[in-house]
């Protein structure tokens, strides 16, 4: 072991990074690489475990911390923090993780895609490590949600099983909702303590308990803890989660994830516990969960169901111990957490083996397995005895501590019999269900009708159980020599000075707790003998009196109610018609904009602007533009072609305005955009319904139509006026001497390396905005594509257009001509010219792109120019001809463009700069000469690719719409490839 290996920060990092890296690697393995994935996971768990063990000497005196700056402006850093408590939980997570991996290697069928399973399992391990090693509350909440997420994926691993899907969804809903509550809780906690750093928070105990926000904060934190640790009334998801593969149940739902809630309560115990509120909430939840879980476990017919309810009950026990708020209660809670993890994980694995070997988990069908699998039976019996609290096993010790605490509850007003009696009752139940588990499964006559003949499992599948049961026994006999020092470190790390005296000895003399234990053992046995038959023949597989309180039913009811309520809301507020939707969206947008603008509106005259004398040429230009726009609006309903032409006129007017006002960059872009927009609009026109004068419209409808049009007009005018007002206000603002415009002009070259300020603005200073904008552009392209993929035109535009029909009829009349010849002839010269112009336009696009950083141009303009080149080819030669020769694959362009832009932005992280920081220099290239090569040019390439992809995507979608066979056209051509294939 060298010094580098022993460096605490590296060890800390490897404890949390190894599982995540392993998860990614496992996910990349081939589909059925069972051994590879298992070996990888095993190594990962061992690396983490060895790191933890090497770190132990460092944490006996106090926490080890490693900080990575994350969001310093918010006071949130990524802090890895390991102390005694988190060390114990880490070892639990990694150690049981290693055993579960070994077990899962044999449990999982070679027909399952096992690498996916191990990838989830490792990712869960990483998330769990993140929770227990978090030195920052927000970080803890994030990893907390990650554990919920991977638990969901693991429960739903066999996703073609309905039960697995339902169980996964329920677990996710409950635990992730709890995680959100936890986030609120830790935000409140951080607010009270003044920092999210765990060490600061832990040092602010008095401040937190005195705060008026203490109670709401406590409730939210506990909601998180209770949902995760399956405390009543949120316990119902855990039995449903048993649809998961058994290694998952053994790992997540007994040993680790459900302990996250317990961990959280322990972690925050010094600052939260000890108040009346804490005692009332945590104690009540704990005792209820303890009793209900134990009682329900008795009646389960499913092996795993029994274990699940038993887990709930034990979690309730630990919660109750924490709720008591006494240091000794804390010691007992921590001890029982460790013990429970060992015996419950081994029991789950045993249940999995039984299921694996016999094909059933039904306690009513199982019987006499003692003969078929003697070793497994012995192991399971010992583990179940530990669960029941039989002396000389670890479960006995912590249960004894629990009973002692129940008897000596220091609260005067609670010095009554209730708590000890209930504790004894719950212990009796535990004995009862443990006994039933053992007796039904392993004793009695050998079962006859099992789906498969049971025998012992492979040795290495049994090995994890052997090891865990060995721990149960060793800890149960010599606790002080085995678990003692580690437990002490864990307790010390939380309680510090307040660490009480406690003894782990097996024999404390004949006292009240021991008597209670003996009563429970005897009582449980007697009850089992008495009620064995009715329990085993109970058809419900659950206690009857719980029906009204059944969490699953309540959950389903709430879910159904939510669905119904949203449907009602959608039917009241929503509509399927496009126009009202658009109108509502625009009205809401307008309202929001007005509200947002109001505070900045300090009167029109306040600016003291003076009107410059208008240039007559400019006035004429604008009058023309306004006229075009008005005619376009006027004609849009019935003369769409004229409207599109007029729209082009209005666009040209604004284009010339840009030239006039010395903005060549905007003018270039505007011109190119106008061209593409017009072409795409014209292509779409063909699919709009025709006007039918023959339809008689009743006068009442006419009135309504008129009213609707007037209201549309008003909306349009309001929106236009508002936009104009904003523009007016902004343009008449006095230019501040240190305004942002000046800043850009002065720093564009110096910091962005470009003389074209607009382009530098787009790809450098405001590159994040551009990234957002191109994402939207990509989305628009995808949306048009998706809409047109399923678009079925109206009946009247289904047939070929009249022109096509006439031409074909004419061609068909002549013997010497083929259908389509007329079109061919017409397009002969244009086609040749357009084809020859293709490389020229591509060159032009490259030119625009390369000069963009210093002179008008840039990725956006280049992208539009490039797509014009493609559009021309489609127009000149037809879709089939082009696609036979050139597959453009616009979806790839979109993906590449967005990917390049994002990666360029992330590239600056490598050099330690924030996202999208740019860097530039000039380079001497052959032929081209001196070319500016800022890193922003890569970003610009991304913009270029996305613009091309998005535009061409729309084009191709429209083009293929025309290729779909109208009914009256004979299939003269081979069918065109489906749209999905060309893109």
């Amino acid at each position, binding site marked *: 072991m060298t010094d580098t290996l022993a460096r605490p920060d590296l060890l800390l990092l490897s404890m949390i990074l190894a599982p995540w890296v392993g998860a990614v690697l496992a996910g990349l393995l081939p589909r059925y690489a069972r051994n590879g994935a298992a070996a990888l996971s095993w190594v990962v768990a061992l690396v983490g475990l060895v790191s933890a063990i090497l770190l132990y000497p460092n944490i006996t005196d106090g926490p080890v911390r490693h900080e990575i700056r994350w969001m310093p402006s918010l006071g949130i850093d990524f802090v890895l923090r390991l102390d005694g408590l988190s060390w114990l939980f880490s070892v639990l997570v990694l150690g049981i993780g290693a055993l579960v991996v070994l077990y899962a290697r044999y449990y999982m069928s070679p027909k399952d895609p096992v690498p996916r399973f191990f990838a989830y399992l490792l990712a869960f391990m990483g998330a769990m490590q993140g929770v227990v090693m978090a030195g920052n509350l927000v970080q803890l909440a994030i990893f907390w949600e990650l554990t919920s997420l991977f638990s969901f994926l693991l429960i739903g691993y066999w996703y073609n099983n309905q039960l697995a899907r339902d169980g996964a969804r329920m677990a996710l809903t409950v635990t992730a909702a709890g995680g959100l509550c936890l986030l609120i809780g830790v935000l409140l906690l951080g607010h009270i303590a003044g920092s999210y750093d765990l060490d600061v928070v832990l040092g602010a105990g008095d401040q937190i308990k005195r705060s008026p926000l203490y109670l709401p904060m406590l409730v939210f934190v506990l909601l998180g803890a209770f949902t995760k640790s399956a405390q009543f009334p949120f316990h119902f998801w855990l039995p449903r989660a048993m649809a998961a593969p058994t290694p998952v149940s053994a790992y997540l739902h007994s040993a680790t994830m459900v302990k996250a809630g317990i961990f959280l309560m322990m972690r925050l115990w010094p600052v939260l516990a000890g108040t009346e509120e804490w005692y009332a909430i945590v104690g009540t939840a704990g005792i209820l969960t303890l009793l209900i879980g134990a009682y329900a476990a008795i009646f389960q017919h499913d092996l795993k169901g029994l274990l699940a309810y038993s887990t709930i009950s034990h979690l309730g026990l630990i919660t109750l111990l924490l709720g008591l708020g006494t240091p000794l209660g804390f010691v007992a809670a921590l001890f029982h957490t460790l013990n429970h993890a060992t015996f419950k994980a081994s029991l789950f694995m045993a249940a999995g083996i039984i299921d694996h070997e016999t094909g059933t988990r039904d306690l009513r069908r199982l019987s006499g397995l003692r003969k078929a699998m003697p070793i497994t039976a012995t192991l399971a019996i010992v583990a179940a005895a530990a669960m029941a609290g039989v002396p000389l096993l670890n479960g006995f010790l912590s249960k004894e501590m629990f009973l002692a605490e129940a008897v000596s509850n220091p609260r005067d007003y609670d010095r009554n019999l209730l708590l000890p009696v209930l504790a004894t009752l719950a212990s009796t139940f535990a004995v009862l269900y443990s006994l039933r588990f053992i007796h039904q499964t392993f004793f009695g006559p050998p079962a006859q009708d099992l789906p498969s003949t049971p025998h012992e499992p492979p040795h290495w599948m049994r090995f994890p159980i052997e090891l865990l049961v060995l721990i149960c026994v060793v800890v149960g006999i010599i606790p002080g020599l085995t678990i003692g020092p580690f437990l002490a470190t864990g307790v010390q790390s939380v309680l510090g000075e307040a660490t009480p005296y406690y003894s782990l000895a097996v024999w404390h003399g004949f006292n009240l707790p021991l008597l209670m234990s003996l009563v429970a053992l005897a009582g449980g046995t007697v009850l089992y003998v008495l009620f064995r038959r009715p329990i085993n023949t109970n058809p419900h597989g659950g206690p009857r009196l719980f029906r009204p309180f059944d969490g699953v039913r309540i959950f389903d009811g709430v879910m159904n109610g939510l669905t119904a309520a949203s449907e009602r809301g959608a039917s009241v507020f929503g509509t399927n018609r496009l126009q009202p939707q658009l109108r509502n969206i625009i009205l809401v947008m307008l309202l929001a904009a007005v509200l947002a603008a109001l505070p900045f509106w300090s009167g029109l005259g306040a600016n003291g602007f003076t009107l410059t004398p208008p240039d007559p040429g400019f006035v004429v230009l604008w009058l023309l533009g306004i006229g075009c726009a008005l005619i376009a609006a006027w004609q849009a309903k019935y003369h769409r072609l004229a409207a599109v032409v007029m729209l082009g006129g209005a666009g040209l007017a604004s284009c010339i305005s840009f030239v006039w006002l010395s903005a060549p960059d905007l003018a270039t872009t505007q011109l190119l955009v106008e061209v593409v927009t017009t072409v795409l609009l014209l292509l779409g026109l063909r699919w709009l319904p025709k006007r039918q004068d023959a339809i008689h419209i009743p006068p009442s409808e006419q009135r309504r139509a008129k009213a609707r049009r007037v209201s549309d007009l008003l909306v349009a005018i309001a929106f236009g006026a508002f936009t104009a007002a904003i523009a007016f206000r902004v343009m008449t603002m006095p230019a501040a001497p240190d305004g942002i415009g000046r800043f850009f002009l002065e720093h564009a070259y110096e910091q962005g390396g470009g003389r074209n300020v607009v382009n530098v603005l787009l790809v450098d200073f405001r590159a994040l905005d551009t990234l957002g904008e191109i994402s939207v552009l990509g989305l628009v392209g995808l949306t048009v594509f998706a809409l047109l993929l399923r678009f079925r035109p109206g009946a009247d535009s289904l047939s070929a257009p009249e*022109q096509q029909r006439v031409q074909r009829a*004419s061609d068909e009349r002549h013997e*010497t001509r083929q259908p389509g010849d007329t079109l061919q002839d*017409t397009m002969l*010269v244009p086609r040749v*010219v357009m084809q020859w112009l293709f490389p020229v336009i591509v060159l032009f696009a490259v030119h625009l792109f390369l000069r963009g950083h210093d002179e008008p141009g840039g990725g956006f303009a280049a992208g539009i120019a490039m797509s014009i080149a493609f559009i021309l080819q489609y127009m000149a030669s037809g879709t089939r001809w082009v696609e036979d020769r050139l597959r453009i694959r616009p979806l790839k362009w979109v993906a590449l463009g967005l990917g390049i832009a994002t990666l360029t932005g992330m590239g600056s992280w490598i050099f330690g700069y924030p996202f999208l920081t740019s860097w530039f220099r000039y380079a001497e290239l052959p032929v081209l000469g001196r070319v500016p090569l800022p890193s922003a040019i890569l970003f610009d390439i991304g913009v270029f690719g996305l613009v091309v992809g998005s535009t061409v995507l729309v084009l191709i979608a429209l083009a293929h719409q025309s290729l779909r066979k109208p009914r009256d056209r004979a299939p003269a051509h081979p069918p065109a490839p489906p749209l999905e294939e060309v893109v």
Partner: protein
Amino acid sequence: MTDAAQLPLWAAWVVTALALAGAGLSLVGAIGLLRLRRFYERVHAPTLGATLGMGLVVGASILFFSLLEGELVLRDGLIALFLTLTTPVTLILLARAAVFRDRTEGSEDVPADLHH
């Protein structure tokens, strides 16, 4: 455009004359487009501006910038090249569409379908 003052007087005259002549031809074409009656007549009018008119303006521009920059500037020739290439496309498409429409409507104006 402040550099325009550095131009020799004779050159200023020539450039102005060329530009004005080109613009004038384009104006004539535009008026023709407005005044002529039939489509097939009107389609010819704008070509005045697109051919000779354009040539004169481009000539003016080449002369102006060549003298100003002290070397032969030919990049404006690209305008001439591309306009010459692309204008016929528009005209052919327009004329074909008109012929098609007139034939479909059975107008006397156009020669009947050659393939009859």
